[in-house]
């Protein structure tokens, strides 16, 4: 099974790194890139990806609000929040926005994404 991914970040270096990572890793397909929370919501609703890698700090509605909207409007999409914040500095609201997890950007790799996606799937099956 291929995990279809959208990456949402207004920073080009991270989007490029994710593009490179997914292109060279079996089992993933990058289906879209967004540069704002609004764009991420729009892509999530239209493409229904399996996973959205969402930067917390973006212009406009920001990653947390975008994750909350995606959770409601595209419930089969799992959102993983990413940032360069230390865990202790994460903003309030991160636990209640429907995201399946948080990764420091420097820890993003195929294994972490698989683990978080599997956890999201099993949580969804548990609810179903």
């Amino acid at each position, binding site marked *: 099974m291929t995990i279809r991914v959208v990456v949402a970040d207004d920073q080009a270096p991270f989007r490029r*790194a994710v593009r490179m990572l997914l292109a060279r890793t079996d089992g993933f397909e990058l289906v879209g890139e967004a540069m704002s929370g609004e764009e991420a919501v729009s892509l999530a609703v239209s493409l229904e990806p399996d996973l959205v890698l969402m930067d917390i700090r973006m212009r406009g509605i920001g990653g947390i609000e975008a994750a909350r909207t995606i959770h409601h409007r595209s419930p089969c999409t799992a959102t993983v929040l990413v940032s360069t914040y230390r865990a202790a500095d994460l903003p309030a609201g991160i636990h209640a926005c429907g995201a399946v997890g948080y990764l420091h950007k420097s820890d993003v790799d195929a294994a972490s994404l698989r683990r978080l996606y599997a956890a999201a799937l099993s949580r969804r099956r548990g609810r179903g």
Partner: protein
Amino acid sequence: MNDDQPTHALEDLGAAIEELAASRSRVVRVADARSRTIERRLHDEVQQQLVALAVGAQLARDLVATDPRAAVSQLEQMGRDVRCALEDVRALAAWVYPPLLLDRGLVDAVTAAASAHAIPTRVDAEPLGRLAPQVEAAAYFCCVGALANTTRRRAGVTRVSIVLRLRNGALQLEVEDDGTVQAADEPDDAELVALCDRIAALGGKVDRSVGPTGTRVTGRIPLPS
């Protein structure tokens, strides 16, 4: 003697105190804005490049076993990315405080900024020697700010000239261009106000005159005794 004189003197003093308070408040706001800009540039530029390198390093590690050729290509890309990150750090450090200003003084630093400017810029400077660091910094940032405005806030600029000289115990500076002002931008020229405040804090003054043939920013900073 005119009876109104003491009243006028008091009014003038009151106005000067109000202006001083407003100026101090602007100086603090400008310092805060500069700190926020530094934070944003560290986050948006340097940190993101380091993050991308960290992700790339993990990818290279995974590729070594499965696809060594791809791992080499990945490491080469990372080498290029490191050089970009280094250049961005250098540019940010130079923006915060140019090493040339620190090491070689005002004339060299302004000349380097003029050489890097998009519009041909001539620097006409007397040998100034080294001045007090606060005078050099205020004059440098005033020149560079006025220089930046020649591309940001003016149209049709084809040449810029900068003059630096010592007169009557003060450093005089002049930045002149031959463009026209984009009127819509004028009310937002907060940077010019900030430059004026910086120089006013040293007892100096900045003026700007706008004419049909160009804009001229002049400044005077007294040298500390």
